[in-house]
């Protein structure tokens, strides 16, 4: 028996195997294909957001009025600043990642370790910031009234700031007083054990109406965007009648069902898109940590190439790439 291996006669030919027409390793190519499919998922989300926004083009919340908070600067309206910071953190961590890949090409283990470390820190700061954004959005700040038709009525007053008359929102807590009510929250211990009720709203529409009557400077702002691109402010008489006839319940903050800033869909998409992206960042951080320890124990040093760092780097950059689009379509446009 000279040989048990069957020779196919195609060795060295095009179909003999072992070719790399794309000059990329299997792992890297598959990472690219995964990225393409994931990009399609994200564009599905973002295009669906565009669809809903086009559907309610004249009623959509203005993102600048929603995301105005910056940690430690309580009570100041600073639209865009914090998201810009988050974007910068993510781009920065992309840079340290690409520097890690570069150091890997030069087989400099210690440099790879440090750059991977900074990348992970950047990722953690980003996820933390996003959690804070979520918490602030869920918490809400001024409160509003939802109407029978599902629209949102916000409260505010004209104020003169630097010689300019601007409409500023006024928190419902500031003018409405919660009246005594006989209605108590239903709990399973004092009623039906299999039925649950969420916390009762802090104010009834009646309370808010009395508050509005007592404060002649407060007006209602609707969801409708006027020709100047601003939300419509009703006159005093219209405000009172709108609240009286259509007001249904007091809402504060945002969840999947209501949103004090306007259309509930806005909140839904915010939670889904930034949540899905945040989940990607989180898994990116976890994968980065695994690779980080592999670098430390010298796995790639023994393997004599750092391609694994490059592959996880591709994923990490992709997460950054998606954020660039989320940033534009959620916060800017």
């Amino acid at each position: 028996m000279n040989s048990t291996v069957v020779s196919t006669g195609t060795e060295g030919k095009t179909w003999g195997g072992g070719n790399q027409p794309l000059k990329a390793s299997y792992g890297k190519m598959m990472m690219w294909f995964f990225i393409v499919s994931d990009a399609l998922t994200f564009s599905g989300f973002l295009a669906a957001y565009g669809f809903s926004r086009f559907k309610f083009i004249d009623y959509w919340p203005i993102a600048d009025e929603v995301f105005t908070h910056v940690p430690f600067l309580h009570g100041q309206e600073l639209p865009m600043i914090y998201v810009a910071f988050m974007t910068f953190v993510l781009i920065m961590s992309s840079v340290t990642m690409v520097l890690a890949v570069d150091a890997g090409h030069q087989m400099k283990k210690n440099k790879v370790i440090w750059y991977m470390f900074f990348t992970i820190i950047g990722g953690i700061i980003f996820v933390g910031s996003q959690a804070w954004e979520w918490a602030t959005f869920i918490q809400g700040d001024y409160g509003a009234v939802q109407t029978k038709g599902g629209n949102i009525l916000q409260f505010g007053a004209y104020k003169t700031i630097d010689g300019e008359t601007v409409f500023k929102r006024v928190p419902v807590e500031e003018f409405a007083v919660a009246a005594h009510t006989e209605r108590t929250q239903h709990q399973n211990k004092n009623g039906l054990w299999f039925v649950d009720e969420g916390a009762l709203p802090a104010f009834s529409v009646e309370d808010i109406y009395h508050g509005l009557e007592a404060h002649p400077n407060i007006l209602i702002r609707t969801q409708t965007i006027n020709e100047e691109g601003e939300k419509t402010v009703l006159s005093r008489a219209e405000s009172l009648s709108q609240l009286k006839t259509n007001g249904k319940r007091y809402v504060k903050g945002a969840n999947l069902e209501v949103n004090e800033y306007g259309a509930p869909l806005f909140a839904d998409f915010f939670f889904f898109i930034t949540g899905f992206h945040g989940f990607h960042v989180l898994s990116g951080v976890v994968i980065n940590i695994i690779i980080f320890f592999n670098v430390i124990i010298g796995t790639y040093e023994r393997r004599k190439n750092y391609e694994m760092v490059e592959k996880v780097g591709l994923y990490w950059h992709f997460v950054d790439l998606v954020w660039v689009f989320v940033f534009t379509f959620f916060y800017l446009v």
Partner: protein
Amino acid sequence: MADHAHQLEIFRGLIKFKSNTQKIWGVLLLLTIVTAVEVVLGIYKPEILMSPSMTPFEGGLGATLLNIIFSAFIYTKSLNLIFIVLTIIKAYYITWDFMHMRDETKSLRRLVVWTAVFLISYLIFILLQEGGYIESVYTNGFIKRDF
């Protein structure tokens, strides 16, 4: 991997970096400037950019065709158009320089980019078109929303 060659030119060779590390910092500078421009425009919202730059053409079939061709300028606010273009510029540099697409073969590049661009453009077109249609039904179709 030590012999891995990097293309060090950006802007079609207008700027050529001396090393890969230098190119990375150069691209970071570019991305930072673009983001800063976006943030400043987003905060100040210049009045002149708040409306589309062209008005729709009136008249027969020719006008309709022109409206379709120039739809980005006729139906989109200039500011939003600028944001979208800047975003695509950022996406290009992230993909080309951070993800090393510049160093891949032409076929891998096309495989990834064309597939995504084609499918995403199609998706955006049908969904936005449909959204606009439903909006017109809500506005003109005797559906009461304001209550």
